[in-house]
């Protein structure tokens, strides 16, 4: 198939930039919060939205599609019927037993206005009256056991576990009911409130109240929320061609359907007449008459006059009604300049995607023209399969004020985030998906700082499972190399993103890791800058020495001050830890026993043989004043980044991983038992290959690792065996930081 459209996947940087510039943010009704309870991979999650453009970031499998599906169950007219077809698989798998639990999908709308006629019906049904007026609205989907079951649960005596088990075993999906409510006040994601409304399954305590007012009142018959709003969903552009071929999902047909109802009958009359004439002309074709006669004759011959039908005709069925006539229209597109017009299935994927997206946007525009009280455009992963240039042009025209746009992305290439306050990060914790708001609760100044950082640097930290923050090129280059060679696994495999924040200041970035924001682990690695030379002024110190000593002392003082500041910053925050290099990264790298790779790299920095010899001697001196001064001289002379690149080339499995780095790694991410076993196996295999280990001892150790993998011994026991068997290998020291 031809490749008429270049469709390299490129970050949708422009897309976001453009939308941000175009949408004027006005006081306007919008979705401000989504609560998901026990729905698919969400146990209990809060997603917060702002008016304008919202970004939903998450790796694959983090629940983006399910989140959109939840919203569509409430807002998408096409999906409403699915709300009545929930089944067991819709319950959160984290529930050990779904029976008796509720699924709740709750939407909150903010900046509603009780004086706006277009919103009156919506607010009549779901507007919350608070402080004498309607300031927000809540609209909930609740899938719960019916009253009969809930009454029986309430009748259970407190603590009657056997009774509960019996009752739950008998519950089937037929005992469940769907309720749509509005005007609710409950926070369904609050475990205490959930227990109060639904019940406490552990303590066997269920509420007597069958109609708790907190869940709100039933949405009145007169209101259909999906009809009051305009909601357009653009799915991830994966199966576009299939969509075009399906009558229900074909975006062209839905456009034609919505327009055919508005056709001026007078304009249609001549066409109808033509169609009828056409039908008559076809029916009057001599051949048609002949066939009709033959059929009649054959029936008569076969069945006899009595049993033959009284009449039989052949009719031409070209539709004359507007709707059916319209739906016989097909879209043909000329993709290249050769004049050939192809049907959709002949288009390149990129071409089909573009047409699909265009039709969806047109659908949205038609929707918007109806009298609705709010407009929502939800786009799933717009970055996939559309060339940046086309995206830019397309979204450049996507100029819809009064519209809340929510789009999801799984691209970690997004180097820019529209507005950190409009971002939700979805993350997976085991089987559960959670939603985080990176800027929640931060004062405006800090939000701006964070925004500037994210604008300038890669927004990797929003995608990371866990993060190690460093503030220098040397760390950024050497730490991954060390980990890969020493542990045999990459940082990526460990699930750690190492991010160099440069001179931004750790607090400005690490602030996103918090109970109320990103609940992911973050380890900060920084220098303490303690002096490693004698700083006591000595008689006969020259000016330069005096200045150097003063400078070292200054660094030491500011190192202490930074430590106090950072320790204070992370105090009470279980998500962030700080790990200090006692002196300076390069100095402590050598101090850890790593003069070897530095020495090996010296020819890259010095050409003068005597200098290399001197440097080699100093680096091997074991005196921190000597090797410390030398390594800094080399690094500063070459530039720290260049220095690190050269040294990194010399790193091997015997290069020592400094303790504070190991601590930082394991504070950020605690590797699984399987991962630890792999690391030790890696070390043992190195020893085996290098013929440095006694084969018998190795065999014993391999057996120990196997027992560890099987859960028969614990890590500390394994490490004791390893230290006894191979005392010179650093791995027992490194992994000891895990115990």
């Amino acid at each position: 198939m031809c490749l008429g459209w270049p469709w390299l996947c490129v970050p949708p940087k422009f897309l976001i930039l453009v939308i941000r510039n175009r949408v004027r943010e006005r006081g306007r009704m919008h979705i401000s919060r989504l609560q998901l309870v026990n729905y698919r991979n969400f146990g209990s999650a809060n997603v917060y939205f702002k008016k304008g453009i919202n970004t939903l970031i998450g790796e694959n499998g983090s629940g983006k599609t399910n989140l959109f599906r939840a919203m569509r169950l409430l807002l998408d007219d096409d999906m409403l019927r699915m709300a009545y077809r929930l089944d067991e698989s819709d319950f959160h798998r984290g529930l050990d037993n779904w029976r008796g639990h509720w699924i709740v999908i709750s939407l909150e709308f903010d900046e509603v206005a009780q004086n706006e006629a277009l919103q009156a019906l919506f607010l009549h049904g779901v507007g919350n009256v608070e402080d004498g007026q309607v300031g927000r609205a809540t609209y909930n989907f609740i899938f719960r056991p019916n009253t009969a079951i809930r009454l029986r649960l309430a009748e259970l005596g407190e603590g009657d576990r056997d009774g509960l088990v019996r009752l739950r075993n008998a519950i089937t999906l037929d005992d469940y009911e769907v309720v749509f409510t509005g005007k609710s006040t409950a926070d369904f994601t609050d475990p205490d409130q959930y227990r109060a409304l639904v019940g406490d399954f552990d303590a066997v305590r269920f509420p007597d109240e069958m109609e708790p007012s907190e869940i709100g009142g039933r949405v009145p018959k007169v209101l259909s929320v999906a009809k009051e709003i305009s909601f357009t969903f653009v799915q991830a552009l994966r199966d576009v061609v299939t969509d075009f071929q399906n009558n229900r999902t074909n975006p062209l047909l839905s456009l034609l359907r919505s327009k055919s109802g508005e056709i001026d009958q007078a304009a249609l009359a001549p066409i109808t007449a033509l169609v009828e004439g056409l039908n008559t002309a076809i029916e009057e074709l001599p051949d048609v008459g002949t066939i009709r006669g033959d059929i009649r004759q054959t029936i008569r011959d076969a069945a006899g006059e009595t049993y033959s039908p009284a009449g039989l005709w052949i009719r031409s069925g070209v539709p004359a009604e507007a709707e059916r006539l319209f739906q016989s229209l097909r879209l043909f597109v000329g993709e290249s300049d050769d004049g050939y017009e192809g049907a959709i299935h002949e288009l390149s994927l990129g071409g089909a995607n573009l047409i699909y997206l265009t039709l969806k946007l047109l659908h949205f525009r038609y929707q918007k023209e109806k009298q609705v009280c709010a407009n929502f455009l939800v786009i799933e992963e717009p970055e996939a399969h559309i060339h940046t240039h086309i995206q830019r042009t397309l979204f450049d025209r996507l100029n819809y004020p009064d519209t809340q746009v929510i789009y999801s992305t799984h691209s970690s290439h997004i180097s820019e985030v529209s507005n950190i306050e409009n971002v939700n990060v979805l993350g997976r914790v085991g089987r559960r998906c959670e939603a985080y708001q990176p800027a929640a609760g931060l004062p405006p100044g800090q939000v701006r700082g964070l925004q500037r950082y994210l604008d300038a640097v890669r927004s990797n930290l929003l995608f990371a499972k866990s993060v190690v923050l460093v503030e220098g090129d040397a760390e950024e280059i050497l730490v991954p190399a060390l980990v890969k060679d020493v542990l045999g696994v990459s940082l990526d495999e460990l699930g750690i993103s190492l991010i160099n924040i440069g001179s931004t200041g750790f607090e400005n970035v690490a602030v996103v890791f918090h109970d109320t924001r990103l609940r992911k682990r973050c380890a900060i690695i920084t220098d303490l800058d303690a002096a490693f030379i004698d700083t006591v002024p000595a008689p006969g110190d020259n000016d330069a020495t005096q200045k150097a000593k003063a400078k070292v002392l200054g660094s030491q003082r500011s190192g202490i001050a930074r430590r106090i500041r950072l320790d204070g910053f992370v105090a009470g925050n279980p998500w962030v830890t700080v790990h200090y290099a006692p002196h300076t990264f390069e100095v402590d790298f050598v101090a850890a026993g790593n003069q070897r790779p530095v020495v090996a790299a010296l020819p890259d920095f010095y050409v003068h043989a005597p200098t290399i010899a001197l440097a080699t001697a100093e680096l091997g001196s074991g005196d921190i004043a000597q090797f410390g001064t030398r390594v800094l001289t080399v690094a500063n002379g070459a530039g720290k980044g260049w220095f690190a690149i050269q040294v990194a080339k010399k790193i091997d499995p015997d290069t020592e991983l400094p303790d504070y780095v190991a601590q930082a790694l394991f504070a950020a991410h605690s590797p699984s038992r399987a991962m630890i076993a792999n690391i030790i196996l890696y070390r043992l295999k190195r020893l085996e290959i290098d013929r440095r280990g006694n084969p018998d001892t190795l065999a014993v150790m391999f057996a120990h690792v196997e027992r560890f993998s099987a859960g028969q011994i614990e890590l500390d026991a394994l490490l004791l065996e390893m230290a006894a068997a191979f005392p010179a290998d650093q791995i027992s020291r490194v992994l000891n930081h895990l115990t």
Partner: protein
Amino acid sequence: MTFVWPKGDLNDEQVDAITIPGNVFLTACPGSGKTRALTYKAALELSRLATTKQRVVAITYTHRAAEEIHERIEALGVGTEHLWIGTIHSFCIDWILRPYAIYHPALRHGFRVIDAHGTERRLEEHCRALRNGVRPFDCSYSYSTRGCELRDTHGRSQQAVGSVLNRYWADLEAKRQIDFEMILQFAYELIATVPSIAILLSQLFRFILVDEYQDTKEIQYGIIAHVMRAGAGRTNAFLVGDANQAIFGSLGGYAITREQFAQDCQAPFTPKSLSINYRSSTRIVDYFTNYHVIPAAISAEGKNRLFESAISYDHTTPSRQLEDELVRLLRYNIETVGISPREVCVIAPQWVALADITRRLVVAMPEYSFDGPGIAPFARNIDNFFYKVARLALTEPSPQLFVRRLRWAGDIMLELERAEVHLRGVSPRGLLSMCNAIAIDEEDGLNHLRLFFDEFLTGLGIVLADYPALANHHETFFGDSQARINRLQEDGLQGISDIAMFRRVFASRSGITISSIHNVKGAEFDVVIAFALLQGMVPHFGDLQVESAKKLLYVICSRARKNLHLISETGRMNRGGPYLPTEVLASYAFNYDDVPD
């Protein structure tokens, strides 16, 4: 497209009344096509709605009127999707109590409405329990915008009645039930204390039409006025009624003046009137005009205007011969004048034992059939779920009834949903054909219905015990009906428990009608025979004002198209002696006709 009606459908007065912009206060004399004007007004305003969000609301006095007007608008070819029509109680429940229940402390955990029978039974219980001499009928109360008011304690102390009512209210609250009066009270409290309600409703309601405004209660005017005020011109109102026919004063109804309502709504109302009577003869019109309270010029212009009406007044027949006299008058009109029995109505004040008279007439005139509320084996309790099912059980599928029965099936589905019965994949049409397929071979009416309901519930997979609200309705339906049948049988009415008698409740009028004055509202007959026109009954001794008597007589007399027969029988005994004829009637000098034997 704006609704256009064929020329001649409406007269100039009616056209003027429904086309003038803004709020209208329409005074309509009897037989002047008031319902027609209201129907066309609703159709017109529905066709003028600019957005699909808005509604036209029509408030009628009875469910029957709502149903009739609804069908009439549909027959005019105007879509009723954005019409809401019903009684004020339904209005309060649909638009205020259900959507805003969570903002009222008494309703926030849900509520159930108990009907008049339920109220009476509860009051009986509490009266029995307290033994303070208070009887249920001493306890009628109503709410106004000022609070609770006792209607007529029949001499019992307010304190004693209050203690019964307090028990009654506490009992209801514990059961999360509310009675009809509380519907109005809570709706008023909500709309008065939560301003957003009126603001939102005023944006949803383009027009509020009120039928029979003269029987509207003060608190009902209050509820509507709140919406009107919040709308500040967005919502218009169209009130139709006749102050001369305001006979529900004892229940709290009254005809507000245009000026007062305009002030309450803070909006001007254009006064309009319909003064042409299309119903009666000139003689009848001239006669009932005499009883007007508020003067209104009425001209008879219908096809009966030249009919030579017989208007008789009999104040000599002793009460023990009343039955014979009624039979004589009935036979005269039907057999001599040639009036169809369907077009004859016997009217009496509601205090008279109508069932007793009916029974005796049934015996005396076996060749005729009779229709009357007194002989229905169960109450028209529209709010009872099983009454709604009974409508389908007791009517036969027919093309004429199809639309109506389909709507009834829709009503049932709505009620099921409210009772939290969730039916998957059942449509009103499906429900209807399911009901049509139920065949019960049982002649006893109550047993018949019981079996029908069982099959109905089984067909839908409903176990009654799982739904307390429905179970409660079931119990009430059969409890009330059994009590009613027992009473009728004690009165000597035979065959009342037959399924045929049940079916007649929903059959169209076929025999001579027997009705109380209050129930005859809105109806019309060729011949009206009224008895027990006695001081203390008309007017009732609880309200002995001349005006009250006049309004009752005005309503009675204006029902007749052709002949009118008034009887103040002698010898009915009151506590202090025999009743005397209604003073207003007795003192009116009129050239009455004799009715030949």
